[in-house]
Structure formats: structure tokens, C-alpha cells
């Protein structure tokens, strides 16, 4: 109880509420605009938090995250164009309902389902994180190395059909992270003598802004002159009793599933959304209506994608491993504030951690309130002309990458990352693995070498504990699980 009082006294001040409200509001607007993703929104607005206190900054980013994931459903329903990839599944039935003149009903269902999914994920975050952090305190360098390797192996599983392209991008990220002074031996790698920018290493924040915001803006330039108009009338937003029952039956469950998907490093809200859609279809009372405008089909993915938000925070806060690209940026936000995500955060900054938990609940509630009260306003956002918006994004990318270290070198890094990201997108290379590589690569290398240093070069240090074997099993499953399953299925069918 005293902790709660301290949180309200020190962290959850009216100013923080205001920042959160601004975050949720801008997040919904960003998510609603096709072409602007949650990751892009958080990357673009991250520099705004540099001058804030840690709790203010991180809660504003959380507000943007929750708001943007929900906001994507607005354009999915009204334009059949998902505002973010996480709303692709919602577009199927949401748009079908809108075409029947029931856009308000679809948006109401999506708002409530998002809220329920978000709440379940906050609850899981609250219950699981402290326990996982306690367990993580027992981790030594060997365990952290294997954890990072597991996170890197997951890259293949989240890369869809192009596993080798995902891994390739992950490797590029890891290699970029090796530039500069080696943290163990202080040897300078891949940096010409006298080039202090490269010797200090390449920051991943400008790379993220480039890969997720600048490259997306380049893509927007391709069809800059196409503007979409919202035709649908929005009425009956509050769900009726019949719809309410369907949402309450499906959204919390898909929210729970989304949470566990979020916990897996690298698996984001888009995966949570499609898994949520499939789960909803398997438990729906009217599965035959899927695809024709079903409230159950909207509740599934919306519960699932907002469930991911809390889930992705769990490994980020407890282990320092990002659950998805957005939480990877949040690691950057915490690092800039001088905080290191991981088990020690729960020991040294307990108030901040619980402020984040409580803030996430408040952000979800604000998202629900804004969703119901301001949906007509958010649909107006869809009319903002791309011809003005895109140049503004360029400026925000520039100022964002400059602001971290007041370095024009970082701005160049951002622009190069944006250009590389644009061309990688052309050949269907997913860019999220690069971020995982940038964060997990140094973590893996440092812990690998520290473990060997402690053991005097004895490699058996990686097989000495139950936790090590647990991670080894996870690595094997993540690498070969799919193939073993396919072989078993083949044998069974033969």
C-alpha cells in the first residue's frame, strides 16, 4: 500500500497523466494513419522524452504504443487499409461491417476488445514480471548469453517464409553493433583511427528511426498523391448487449494468448492479431460469419494485438530483452535515462517499475475512453494530407536522431539506415530482426566472453546449470521445432 502511495506521490503526478494522455492521443492518430506504424510513432517521438524524467518519458511512449496498436483498427474498419500491420486481420470483418453501414458497431467492438486485451496483458505483466525478475537474478553471464542466443534464434521464426532473409538482416544488425571499441578488450573494431564517431560505436536509436520511420516515409512518397476519403457514417458506437457478450467471451482469451506471444522476443502485435483471429474462429459461436462482418472476428485480433503490448514489456523489463521492435526502442529510452532494463531494475527502481505497470493500466483506460468519446475526431485524422505529413516526418526523423547526442553523424546514420531499409523492403527483407541483432548481439557477445573469462576459458560453463539447459532446449526447439513437427506430420500422413 505504501508503494502505491509513493507511486502516486512521486511518479503518477498530474503532469505524467497529461503526458500519457498526449501519448495515447497521438498514438491513436499515428496508428489510424495508414503508413504510420506503432514502431514508427514511438521511434519518431522518442527524442521528445530526452528532456523528461524517466517515468514521464516511458509512460508517454507506452501511451503511444497502446494508442497506436488500437488506432490501426480505425483505418482498417473505415478504409480497409490497416493503419498498422497489427490491424490487418481486423480489416477483414471490420470493413465488411462498415460496408453494411455498421462502421460504428465495428469500431465500438474493436475499442472494447482492445481494452480487454490490454487489461489482461497488464494483469499478466503485473503477475509474471516480478517472479521472472527474481528468477533472472540467478542468471550469470552464461545464462544471459544463452538467453540472447535464444532471442537471436527466434529471428528465423518471426521472418515468415523468408527465414534466411530475416537471419541475414539480423546478422547485419549484429555486425553493425560490433563497430567501435570492444567492451571486453577495449580493442577498436572496424573504425579507422581518429574517427571518434565510429570508435564510440553506432547508436541504435538513429538506426531504428531510419529503418522504421524514414524508410516508411520513403515508401509513402511512392504513392504520395493518392488520398483516401472516409465515406462511412459512424453511429451506434457503444456495443449492444448481444455484441458485449461476444466480446467478453473472446477478447480476454485472445488477449491472454497475445500476452504470451508478446513475451517471445521478436514476436509482435501483427502475429498476436492473426493468432487471435484464428483462435476466435475456433471458439466462435458463429464461425460461418467470419469474413462477412462478424463482431467475434473483430474481437479476436483486437484482443490479441493489444495483449501483445503488455507481454512484450515482460522480457524487456525483467531481462533487458525486447519483446518486439517497440520495446526495443523503449530499452533505448530507459538507457538514455541512465537505467538498465533487467532484473536489477526491480531491485533499484521498484517505484519506476510499478509506475510503469500502473501507467500501462491507465494508458489502456485512456485509450478506451478516447476511443469511445473521440472516434469521430480520429476519423478526421484520416483526412490529413500525406503531402504535408510526409515532409514533417522527415524533419522529425532528422531532429530525433540529432537530439540524442547532438551529433550530425547520427543524422547521417539515420538517413543511411532509412535508404537501406527502403531497399531491403523492396526485396522483402524484414527489418525488425536488425533491431534484435543490434540489441541482442552485443549482449550475447559480452556475456559469452565474460562467462569464459570467469571460467578461465572452460566452455563447460555454458552447460553447468538447469537454466542453461532450459535455454539450450529452447534454442533447439526454436531452430528445429518446425522441421521436426513437419517430419512427424509427414510420417503420420504416410
Amino acid at each position, binding site marked *: 500500500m505504501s508503494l502505491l502511495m509513493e507511486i502516486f506521490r512521486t511518479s503518477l503526478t498530474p503532469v505524467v497523466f497529461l503526458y500519457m494522455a498526449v501519448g495515447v492521443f497521438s498514438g491513436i492518430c499515428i496508428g489510424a494513419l495508414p503508413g504510420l506504424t506503432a514502431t514508427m510513432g514511438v521511434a519518431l517521438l522518442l*527524442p*521528445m522524452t*530526452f*528532456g523528461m524524467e524517466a517515468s514521464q518519458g516511458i509512460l508517454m511512449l507506452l501511451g503511444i504504443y497502446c494508442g497506436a496498436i488500437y488506432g490501426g483498427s480505425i483505418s482498417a474498419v473505415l478504409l480497409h487499409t490497416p493503419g498498422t500491420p497489427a490491424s490487418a486481420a481486423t480489416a477483414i470483418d471490420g470493413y465488411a461491417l462498415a460496408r453494411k453501414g455498421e462502421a460504428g458497431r465495428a469500431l465500438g467492438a474493436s475499442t472494447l476488445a482492445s481494452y480487454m486485451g490490454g487489461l489482461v496483458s497488464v494483469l499478466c505483466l503485473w503477475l509474471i514480471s516480478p517472479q521472472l525478475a527474481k528468477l533472472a537474478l540467478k542468471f550469470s553471464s552464461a545464462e544471459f548469453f544463452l538467453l540472447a542466443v535464444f532471442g537471436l534464434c527466434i529471428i528465423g521464426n518471426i521472418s515468415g517464409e523468408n527465414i*534466411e*532473409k530475416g*537471419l*541475414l538482416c539480423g*546478422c*547485419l544488425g*549484429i*555486425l553493425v553493433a*560490433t563497430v567501435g571499441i*570492444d567492451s*571486453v*578488450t577495449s*580493442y577498436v*573494431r*572496424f573504425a579507422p583511427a581518429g574517427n571518434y564517431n565510429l570508435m564510440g560505436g553506432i547508436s541504435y536509436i538513429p538506426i531504428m528511426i531510419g529503418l522504421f520511420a524514414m524508410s516508411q516515409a*520513403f*515508401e509513402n*512518397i*511512392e*504513392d*504520395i*498523391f493518392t488520398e483516401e476519403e472516409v465515406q462511412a457514417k459512424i453511429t451506434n458506437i457503444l456495443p449492444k448487449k448481444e455484441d458485449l457478450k461476444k466480446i467478453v467471451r473472446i477478447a480476454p482469451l485472445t488477449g491472454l494468448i497475445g500476452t504470451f506471444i508478446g513475451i517471445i522476443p521478436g514476436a509482435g502485435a501483427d502475429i498476436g492479431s492473426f493468432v487471435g483471429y484464428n483462435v476466435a474462429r475456433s471458439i466462435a459461436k458463429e464461425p460461418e460469419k467470419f469474413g462477412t462482418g462478424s463482431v467475434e472476428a473483430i474481437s479476436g485480433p483486437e484482443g490479441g494485438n493489444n495483449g501483445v503490448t503488455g507481454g512484450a514489456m515482460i522480457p524487456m523489463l525483467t531481462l533487458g530483452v525486447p519483446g518486439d521492435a517497440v520495446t526495443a526502442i523503449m530499452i533505448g529510452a530507459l538507457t538514455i535515462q541512465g537505467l538498465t532494463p533487467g532484473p536489477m531494475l526491480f531491485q533499484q527502481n521498484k517505484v519506476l517499475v510499478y509506475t510503469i505497470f500502473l501507467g500501462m493500466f491507465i494508458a489502456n483506460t485512456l485509450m478506451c475512453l478516447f476511443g469511445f468519446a473521440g472516434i469521430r475526431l480520429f476519423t478526421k485524422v484520416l483526412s490529413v*494530407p*500525406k*503531402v*504535408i505529413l*510526409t*515532409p*514533417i516526418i*522527415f*524533419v*522529425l526523423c*532528422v*531532429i530525433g536522431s*540529432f*537530439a540524442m547526442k547532438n551529433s*550530425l553523424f547520427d*543524422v*547521417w546514420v539515420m*538517413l543511411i539506415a532509412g535508404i537501406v531499409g*527502403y531497399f*531491403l523492403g*523492396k*526485396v*522483402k*527483407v524484414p527489418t525488425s530482426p536488425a533491431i534484435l541483432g543490434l540489441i541482442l*548481439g552485443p549482449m550475447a*557477445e559480452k556475456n*559469452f*566472453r565474460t562467462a*569464459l*573469462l570467469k*571460467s*578461465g*576459458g*572452460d566452455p563447460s560453463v555454458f552447460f553447468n546449470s538447469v537454466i542453461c539447459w532450459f535455454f539450450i532446449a529452447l534454442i533447439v526447439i526454436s531452430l528445429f521445432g518446425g522441421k521436426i513437427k513437419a517430419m512427424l506430420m509427414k510420417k503420420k500422413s504416410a
Partner: protein
Amino acid sequence: MKKGNYVLAAICAVLGIGVIVISLGYPTAENYGTGVPGPGLWPIVISVVLLACTAIMVFRTWKMKPEEDTKIEVAGKGARRVYITMGILVIYLLLLQPLGFIIATTALEFIFIQWFAKKNPLITLAISLAVTMVVYCVFQFVLNVPVGSFGLIRWQ
């Protein structure tokens, strides 16, 4: 898509081999005598994985059926617009240091908005200046993120 994959593979192969060659010149575990691998080992391991992925990608691209080979738009109107945009941004970054944020950014916004929106130049100038000043003031004075430390107009 096939051509694109081959170009990507060539770049990755050059990069991977280049990293291995450079890393082989770094000190090894014996130089440190602590049992800790030298600074070159990790980049070599990752480059080997990169080369393996590249080889798999080349093999899969080679085996790709013609119907799977989707066309990549790299020379269309939209793509050309992107290349021009990239060029403008490079020039903007080159001018950012000498001109300063306010002048360079106002000019950048003016060029893009005038190009895309084709409004009255005076209106475009007003929008460009307004956008620049809002972004500048929000970062510099409200959020305490210093952005005006270089160029012709300085606030620090």
C-alpha cells in the same frame, strides 16, 4: 525479385568476406592469455552465418519458379520520386551544418510541400516556416532538447 535477391546476396557476400578478412587480423585468445576469445571471433562467427544465409538465399532464388518471381518497381514514377527525395535529403544534411536548423529545414519543407502539394508559394512558405518553428520551439524550449547549437541562427 530474382535480380534484387542476387544484388543483395552479392553485397552480403562482399560484406561477410570483408569482415572475416579484417577480423582475422585482430588479436586472438593467445594474445590475451585469459582464455577469452579475441575481438575478431564474434564478427567472424556472425559473418559465417551471414554467408550461409546468403548461400541459402541464392539457392532458393535460383530454384524460384517463374510465377513466384514478382516484379520489383525500381524505375517507375514512384521510385524515381523516392530517389529524388533521397538526393534532396542528402543535400539538406550537407547544408544543415553551415545554414543551421531553421533556415535549412524551412527550405527543405518548402521544396517538398511545393513539389507535392503545389500550393501558392507564399502559403507553402508560411506552412514551412510554421512547421519548422513549431518543431524547433517544442524541442528547444518545451522539451529541453537542444537543437539550435549550430548554423547561422543559434540560440546557445
